[in-house]
Structures are given as C-alpha cells and as structure tokens.
C-alpha cells in the first residue's frame, strides 16, 4: 500500500512540475510577444488600413495604385502633425497652401477621401502598420524582441522549453526510481516484506492517467472536427481553367468589380461570362508574365490556359474577326464560397451599403493564384463582424449609406402633424423582394 502512495505522490509532483513549466513557458512567450512592438496596435492599424486606405493605396506599400505607394511615408513628411492633418482632411490642408500638401496633391488625379473621424492613436496605428509592412517586419515569423534582448524567434523558444521540460521530467523519473530503490533497501533492513510492484500495463494509476489524457486530446480534436463540419475554410478546388487572380487583380490591377460587378448591384457577386474574359483576351493571346505554379508546385503554362478559354469562347486566334460570340459555351467554374441554403447573404448590402472591402471576407485574393476560402463563413464569424462594425450613416457628409434618413423624415413629419402614422409600405413593405427572394 505504501508503495502506491509513494508512486501517487511522485506522479502528482511530476504533473505539477510539468504543468508549472508549460504555464511559465507560455507566459514567457506571451510577454516576448507583447514586448515585440505593440502587435495589437499594428493589428488595429491593419484593419483600419484594409477598410479605409487599401481601396486606393496598394497593400504591399511599394507599388502605386489609385493612390501612391505609402512605404516610408513618415520619413517624407517633416511634420508629423501635418501628416495627420493631411489624412484627416487633405483638401483643407492643400487649400491652406502647406507646400508638401500641394506637392502631394499633384501626384494623382484623384483627390483623396478625407477621414475626419480618425483619432491620433488610430492614425499612428495605421502608420505603424504601413511601416511594419513596408520594412517586412510583418513577414517574419515573430516580431523582433526588445532591444535589450537578443532577437530569438518563437520556434527557438519552443525548442528550449521542450528540452527543459524533457530534462526535468527525466530527473523527476530518475528520482522516483531512486526513491523506490532506497525504500526497498530500507524495508529489507527493517525486515518488512516488499510487495513486488505491478507491471505498468496493469497499474490502475497509469491506466487511468493515460485514459484521461487520451480522452481529453481526442475529445478536443473530435469536437473541433464536429464544429468545423460543413465549414469549407481552405477549400481550394481545381477549376476548369487555371485562372490566376494574382495575375489579373494583383499584377494587372483589374478592379474586382470589373468582372464581379454584380457585387455592387445584387445578391450574387457574378461570375463573369466568357465575353467579359474576351474583352481583353481577344488581344492578349499569350501569357508573358512570371512562371505560374499551381498549389502542388507544378509549372503551369499560362498561354495554354488562355487557349482553353478560346476553346470555350469558340474563338480562333488566327481569324479573330470572324468570332461569333453567340457560339460561346459557359465555363463551369467550381463554386468555392458556399453558404447553407438557410442563410441569406446579399453582396450589395455589404459592398455598396456597408462599404466593406472584398478582402475583408475573401482575403488577399490579389495574392492568390488559385482562390482558396479564406474565412470560415460560420455564424460566429458573421456575428462577430456585425458586432464590431460601425454603421456609417453620415448623411450630412454624403458618404454614408443615408438609409435611416427616411426614418428621421418620418419622425419629423409625425411631430409636425404632416403624417399621422407610418405604414409598412412607407418603409419598403411592398418591395417584391421583401417576400419573394
């Protein structure tokens, strides 16, 4: 009996030691992360940049888009306060005659949208993100640790902790055996008969411990798998043509809405018909860009893929003027983003009214050759965004969705006696789609 107690005691000790080591390891990691350059601020800056700036300014900070490249912007402005002013209201700053503002305003034909509701802290976060992205800090596996500490990457830390844990565990086990041996010697001396210990596979304590660990681990993966059923995150099907969004929307800067224009107008984002492809590919018959590779790393011949398009379109590159558009066959693209049938999702409501960037839900499509599902499209994911997103009513500035202005009008009309009640019809109740969608 005493033997059991000893083993139990030792086991508890080992468990506690292991637990303490793991916890301290994770705490240590968290603290290095926090020290490594305010990652929460950069994360906020990234979100703000994606929602407010990236529509015009390129996300890689190096190439010019509608707006100029933003890499190294802080170094270009001597006065940081003036840069903040420019971001909030560049029109006013240009009008004030500040020389740098006048110079920048001539860079592009499009006037930058004023963002008057941004706070100083938010602008600083955006600038921090731009700097981090431009200098490539974000692409490293871990943010560089503080100046006092030598820069160690997270994976290195993990290795150190693993080795320390292993060594401690070995010491604990050795001590346990030494302890048992000594106990037996002491018993022999005192003449107490020693009970031969059970082999480990019949030792109930071992079996129970292993059972609990297995149950917890397999339970974790089991419930995770059950929750993720029918969520198709990372789904990346083979398409009939190797169409690279990176080449079209990224390198060649074709606007998402050029092909998916219905995202602005209707529920579905529109898969372009063959004639939209042919708008450009009537002329572009060869692919001359950098070598394309598919998900498995195999080389893809861009020109051969364009030939596949011509087959669908019934277009003969040798004889372009005799092309009969009406003979074209649709390309059966594989749909990637599937919502369950019982969910109603409307693109125009998000893209046009909500002013949500395509990338918010679809990820950096401009960097994907073959599109993969970026978001999990789960209810929690939707609801989370709906909880956090501020609605831009902003009807005075003319940039908001102005939807609720009609309610304000009704409110005033009832107050002044112009109306006695608001019927369902007044708030869109006889629109066909309210019932028949």
């Amino acid at each position, binding site marked *: 009996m005493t033997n059991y107690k000893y083993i139990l005691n030792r086991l508890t000790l080992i468990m506690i030691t292991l637990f303490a080591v793991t916890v301290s390891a994770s705490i240590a990691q968290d603290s290095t992360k926090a020290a490594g350059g305010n990652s929460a601020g950069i994360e906020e800056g990234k979100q703000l940049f994606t929602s407010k700036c990236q529509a015009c300014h390129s996300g890689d900070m190096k190439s010019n888009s509608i707006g100029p490249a933003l890499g190294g912007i802080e170094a270009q402005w001597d006065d940081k306060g003036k840069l903040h002013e420019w971001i909030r209201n560049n029109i006013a700053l240009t009008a004030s005659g500040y020389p740098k503002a006048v110079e920048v305003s001539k860079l592009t034909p499009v006037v930058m949208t004023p963002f008057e509701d941004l706070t100083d802290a938010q602008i600083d976060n955006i600038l921090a993100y731009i700097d981090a992205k431009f200098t490539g800090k974000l692409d490293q596996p871990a943010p560089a640790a503080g100046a006092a500490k030598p820069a160690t990457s997270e994976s290195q830390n993990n290795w150190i902790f693993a080795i320390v844990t292993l060594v401690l565990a070995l010491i604990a086990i050795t001590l346990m055996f030494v302890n048992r041996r000594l106990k037996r010697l002491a018993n022999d001396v005192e003449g107490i008969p020693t009970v031969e210990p059970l082999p480990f596979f019949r030792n109930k304590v071992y079996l129970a411990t292993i059972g609990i660990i297995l149950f917890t681990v397999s339970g974790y993966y089991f419930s995770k798998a059950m929750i993720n059923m029918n969520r198709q*995150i990372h789904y*990346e099907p083979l398409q009939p043509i190797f169409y690279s969004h990176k080449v079209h929307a990224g390198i060649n800067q*074709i*606007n998402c809405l050029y092909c998916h224009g219905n995202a602005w107008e209707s529920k579905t984002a529109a898969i372009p018909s063959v004639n939209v492809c042919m708008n*450009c590919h009537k002329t572009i018959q060869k692919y001359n860009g950098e070598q394309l590779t598919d998900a498995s790393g195999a080389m893809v011949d861009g020109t051969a893929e364009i030939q596949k398009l011509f087959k669908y379109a019934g277009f003969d590159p040798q004889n372009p003027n005799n092309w009969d558009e009406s003979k074209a066959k649709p390309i059966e693209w594989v749909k990637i983003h599937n919502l369950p*049938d019982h969910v109603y999702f409307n693109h125009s409501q998000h893209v046009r009214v909500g002013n949500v960037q395509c990338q918010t839900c679809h990820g950096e499509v401009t960097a994907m050759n073959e599109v993969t599902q970026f978001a999990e499209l789960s209810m929690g994911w939707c609801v989370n965004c709906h909880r956090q997103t501020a609605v831009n009513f902003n009807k005075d500035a003319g940039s908001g969705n102005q939807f609720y202005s009609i309610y304000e009008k009704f409110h005033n009309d009832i107050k002044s006696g112009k109306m006695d009640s608001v019927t369902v019809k007044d708030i869109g109740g006889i629109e066909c789609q309210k019932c028949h969608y």
Partner: protein
Amino acid sequence: MKKYFLIGTIIAGGLLVGCGAGNNNPGYSYMPDMAYSVAYETYAPTDALQKAGVSSYNGLPVEGTVAQDDDLGFVYPYKNDSLGYALSKNVKNPLDTVANVDLKEAERLYEINCGICHGSKLDGNGPLFNGGNGPYTAAPKNFMDKDVIALADGTMYHSITYGIRAMGSYASQLKPIQRWEIIKFIRSKQGKTATAAAASDSTAAK
C-alpha cells in the same frame, strides 16, 4: 477491453478530423439537404430545364425589353453594323436633359470598367497597356484626342454597347444609363481641354 475502447476513440477522432475541407475536397455536412439548395441557385446548370423541354432559355433578356430601373424612356434603335455606327451620331444623350448627373458615380464606373485600359487620366494609358509594356498590346484610345472630343455622344454609346476594334461589348457590364453616365464623365473631363481646343480652332478658321 479498455485498450480497444481507447484505440477506437483515437481512430474515430482521426476520421472526423478528415471531414474538414481542404484543397479539392469541400468536406462533409451534417444535413446536405439544408446545406445545398434544392431550388435553382444563381449559376446553377440549366441542363435539367433543357431536358424538360425549356430549350429557349438562354439567360438573355427578351429582345426589346427595358429593365424597370432603367427609366430613361430610351431604346437604342441601331444594330451592330456600319450603318448603325454611321447613324448613331444622331442619338442624343438622354442625360442632357437631366440636371445633376451623379458624376462621382460615373467616375467610379469609369475607373472600374474603362480606366484599366483608357487610364485614370483618360489618356489611353491604363495599367493594362502601360505605354506598351503591359500585356494589352492594342493602344487604347486617348479620350483627350481631338477626334474623340469631336465624336458624337451617340457614337460613343454605340461603341460601348457593341464594342469597336479591339474593344469588346460592355453591354453585359454596364446598363444603358451607366453607359450614358460614363459618356457624361468623359465629356466633363474633356471639357477643360475642349474649350481650349475650340478656341484655337475658331481662331484658325478666321
């Protein structure tokens, strides 16, 4: 006994992890009839319709119909031929009589659909052409050229609707009112240079 139970749990767990999506596999769903629509979804194949004898379905609006929100009281009368092109110059922009054309919206449409070739500056040097270095080899028209400034609104509309030379038809991407809005936008941009050109022309004529 216990061992078999444990091994069974691990295998079952592993199998379920395999139900997630990835690469070419969309994964499994709990109730496929609730996840995948039984009714026709947008872009669903229409083979079944054709098998049922509905062979006239081609996804195009019936000829001569006008969309409800396209309330211009306007139907473009000409066909895609040289005669239509020649006659198109007589067609007036129906937005001429409309005060406050939303030029901001027109600019948005221009940037998305036209700017990629014709350039944000309307100089015929968009990112796809890029001074001849881009993938698009045909030089897009420079809208600031004198001959485009002289081009009638109706002819521009004809070109957008049916396409011209290397340019394809934008009828599937732009509604009639949007095409007219874009023409308005191009005119407003040309305006500044046009007045200057007209001034020099009139002095030359004298």
